[in-house]
């Protein structure tokens, strides 16, 4: 029988190549491995343990953990028992957790460690449907007496006892699974309103993975590093779906802070990262180059343009002259290959960016240093990824073409519509939202886009975010923001201008890079807010604004900007956990600053309430300077 659920693929892998590595995790400084057979044994133990505790088909298990083999095993175990898994963002605050766990009707929750257990115990009273909380790491929990708690080890032990009594039970449970069973509730953080739980079936995962396998070549011997939260559909598509179906090895980083080091140790063939990470990498490289020896810096500056130019010509399908080829070849030996090696990307066959638009400059940079970076596109509701740029047909500024099994068209108002077997089942307990999203069988993405003559999709912005100035000029805020964010000194930016006479921007400086820049110039500063309000920093960012303006049509140029006193933070609801700006919320929260941007005032006073990690609140008072674009030069000269 052909496997038709994710646990059935696990059994296939454990049968066909039991000794091959399935999972690795760095623990106590050493990479430790689970073979497919061991992976299956863990899943069996957890699944039967769940069954013994009364977990039935259709029950839900929520999971709050960094990516670790135990997490994957628990998710698959719940699915093996016919249940649904609900991965949660580890850095969620209590209110968000409570909403999702309760809305999903989770019966059991897996927590990684004391920190997560504490969060859950605090919410216990408002989570009446939760019967047990399992924890993977017992450190600090030895004396917790709450009967709702149970160590994962104990769950596995009771599962192994049941396996000894009924050796066929696990295989029977897995065999009873059907493709149309729901595998995952993926809660979309959503830039507006409460999160919605997208129901994804095993058939959805299979269709999405088969879609990508028709156009990309994933090998059983490939390695990936799973460092993004599994609650993000892109990660669960790759490290759960693709890994099981293509049979490659998933590596879990030692800690979130060691990802770059672990990347070097693993040397993956496939890498997926959201724009934020690619942007950070470019910033890091640029800053390191500033500190590098003069010789290295000269080489980098001389050869990088050749790499970028060659990459651009190839993408535009223009001939690459022999001279340029030669310079790129020299660059490859002296700069690009060593740089890729430093990033742990020497063996990368496919590097993907997705989840949000990536600035063309960043994209070109990575292609310029010889990395096969490609844009992917999709939504939670298309089970992650449905569009990918094909090798040899990568076009700058597009997200490529849909998989062969995804049907696509651009609807009214330029909205991207799609249909096919990977389209989700619906939102859990929310038929209205489902009916809104899927009309006449087409999934409405809410993304504004257009098709280029070759059929490549160009995503512009969210349909509802496309902004109209007072004089009727339309512009896409995200486009401007991404250009700003290409600067290593800009962490986040929000462009505004609805019904206003011009475009203005609120900018978050990048504390680390601007801090280093300030240190090199002996500019003393104390806090983020203090650094952001330095005259020299305004001059620095002013030059970046000028650069961005040069590439923008005159009507859409940034005329005024302000450097914010704090970073936009998901804990303050200003950005989502996947770092998308919640425009409506930001516009109302910063209404005072925005009003000042459109007045003659030279500065604006702000009082902000900050929510700390533990939920405590504090207020902060600052005076923010407002600058007109171009004034930075005048001030610097004066």
């Amino acid at each position, binding site marked *: 029988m052909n496997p038709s659920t994710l646990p059935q693929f696990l059994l296939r892998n454990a049968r066909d190549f039991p000794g091959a590595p399935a999972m690795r995790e760095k623990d*106590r*400084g*050493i990479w430790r491995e689970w073979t497919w057979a061991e992976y299956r044994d863990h899943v069996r133990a957890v699944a039967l343990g769940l069954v013994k505790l009364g977990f039935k088909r259709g029950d839900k298990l929520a999971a709050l953990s960094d990516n670790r083999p135990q997490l994957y095993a628990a998710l698959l175990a719940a699915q093996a028992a016919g249940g649904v898994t609900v991965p949660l963002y580890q850095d969620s605050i209590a209110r968000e957790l409570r909403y999702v766990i309760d809305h999903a009707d989770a019966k059991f929750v897996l927590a990684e460690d*004391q920190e997560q257990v504490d969060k859950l115990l605090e919410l216990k009273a408002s989570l009446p449907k939760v019967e047990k909380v399992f924890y993977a790491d017992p*450190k*600090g929990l*030895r004396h917790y007496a709450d009967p709702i708690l149970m160590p994962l080890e104990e769950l596995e032990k009771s599962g192994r006892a049941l396996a000894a009594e009924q050796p066929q039970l696990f295989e029977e449970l897995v065999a009873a699974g059907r493709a149309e069973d729901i595998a995952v509730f993926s809660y979309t953080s959503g830039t507006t309103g409460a999160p919605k739980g997208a129901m994804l079936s095993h058939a959805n995962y299979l269709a999405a993975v088969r879609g990508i396998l028709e156009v990309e070549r994933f090998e059983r011997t490939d390695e990936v590093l799973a460092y993004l939260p599994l609650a993000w559909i892109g990660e669960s598509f790759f490290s759960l779906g693709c890994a099981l179906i293509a049979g490659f090895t998933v590596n879990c980083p*030692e800690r979130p802070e*060691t990802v770059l*080091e672990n990347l070097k140790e693993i040397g993956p063939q496939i890498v997926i990262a959201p724009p934020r990470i690619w942007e950070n990498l470019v910033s890091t490289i640029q800053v390191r180059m500033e500190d590098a020896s003069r010789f290295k810096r000269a080489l980098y500056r001389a050869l990088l343009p050749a790499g970028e130019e060659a990459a651009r010509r190839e993408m535009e399908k223009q001939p690459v002259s022999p001279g340029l080829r030669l310079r790129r070849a020299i660059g490859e030996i002296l700069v690009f290959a060593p740089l890729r090696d430093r990033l742990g990307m020497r063996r990368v066959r496919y590097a993907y960016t997705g989840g949000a638009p990536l600035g063309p400059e960043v994209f070109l940079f990575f292609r310029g240093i010889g990395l096969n970076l490609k844009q992917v596109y999709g939504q939670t509701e298309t089970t992650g990824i449905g569009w990918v740029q094909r090798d040899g047909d990568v076009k700058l500024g597009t997200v490529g073409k849909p998989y062969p099994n995804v049907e696509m068209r651009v609807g009214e108002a330029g909205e991207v519509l799609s249909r096919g077997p990977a389209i989700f089942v619906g939102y859990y307990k929310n038929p209205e939202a489902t009916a809104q999203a899927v009309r006449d069988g087409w999934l409405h993405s809410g993304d504004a886009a257009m098709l280029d003559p070759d059929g490549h999709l160009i995503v512009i912005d969210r349909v509802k975010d496309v902004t109209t100035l007072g004089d009727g000029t339309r512009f896409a805020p995200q486009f401007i923001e991404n250009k700003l964010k290409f600067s290593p000194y800009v962490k986040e930016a929000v462009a505004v201008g609805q019904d206003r006479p011009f475009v203005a921007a609120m900018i978050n400086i990048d504390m680390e890079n601007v801090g280093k820049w300030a240190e090199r110039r002996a500019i003393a500063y104390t806090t983020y807010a203090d650094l952001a309000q330095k005259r020299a920093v305004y001059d620095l960012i002013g030059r970046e604004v000028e650069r961005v303006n040069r590439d923008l049509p005159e009507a859409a140029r940034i005329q005024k900007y302000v450097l914010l006193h704090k970073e936009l933070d998901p804990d303050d609801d200003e950005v989502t956990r996947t770092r998308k700006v919640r425009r409506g919320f930001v516009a109302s929260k910063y209404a005072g600053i925005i009003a000042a941007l459109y007045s003659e005032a030279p500065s604006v006073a702000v009082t902000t309430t900050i929510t700390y990690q533990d939920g405590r609140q504090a207020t902060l008072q600052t005076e923010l300077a407002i600058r007109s674009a171009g004034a930075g030069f005048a001030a610097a000269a004066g």
Partner: protein
Amino acid sequence: MDGPAGGIQLSVEGVAKHFGGVRAVDDVSMDVHKGEILSVIGPNGAGKTTLLNCISGVFHPDGGRIRLEGADIGGLSPSRVAARGVARTFQNIALFRGMTVVDNLMLGRHLHMRNGVVSSLAFWGPAQREEVAHRKVVEDIVDFLEIEAIRKQPVGSLPYGLQKRVELGRALALHPKVLLLDEPMGGTNHEEKEDMARFILDVNDEWRTTIILIEHDMGVVMDISQRVVVLDLGRKITEGSPAEVKADPRVIRAYLGTKAAL
């Protein structure tokens, strides 16, 4: 939290230490029970650090006795006290700044290393096996203190709060029975304080390590210790549970006129 967990592990009996005419510690007695967290508090110059120095062997007490599990350790050298299972951290961090975190922790293990210079010169056989075993212990501590990301970094390049954490790690590497912590949270920010408090509780919980803590932050002291001893001008003025000590008029008097607030 329950009261004194076990029998008496360390007893201080009438200990005194004079510097010229100054009686830094004057006839102080206290019992430390197995597995408890005991805080020693008092205004600046009350003699807290001097008392800790007497226990750890840095100072030779001028009078009184110090017993660890019944055996007199008063007057032993610091290395001998350490070998008997008493480890400490310092108010001002005492680590090798140019060495990596792991190397600093490995040094903390050296008391447990058996191979001498000659056998270690040939780095295989027993010496190598021993090194591997110690590295395992060190990696457990790295994992416990969540410092994987800085494993290979020189200590001097780390932020202060992390250095404090590494110093705790170096003390833990001894696998001590009694851990003396001299202001582990001094100079750290709020978040670092919370982390450190959690680690101290976890150490106590995980290994049943007896902990004697000197700390200025009264909030932390009251939250994490089972018992509190109060010193003033070198003398013990009272001891008891955090609640009892807080309500004691002598304590309030000792603190009035100084900046510390209870």
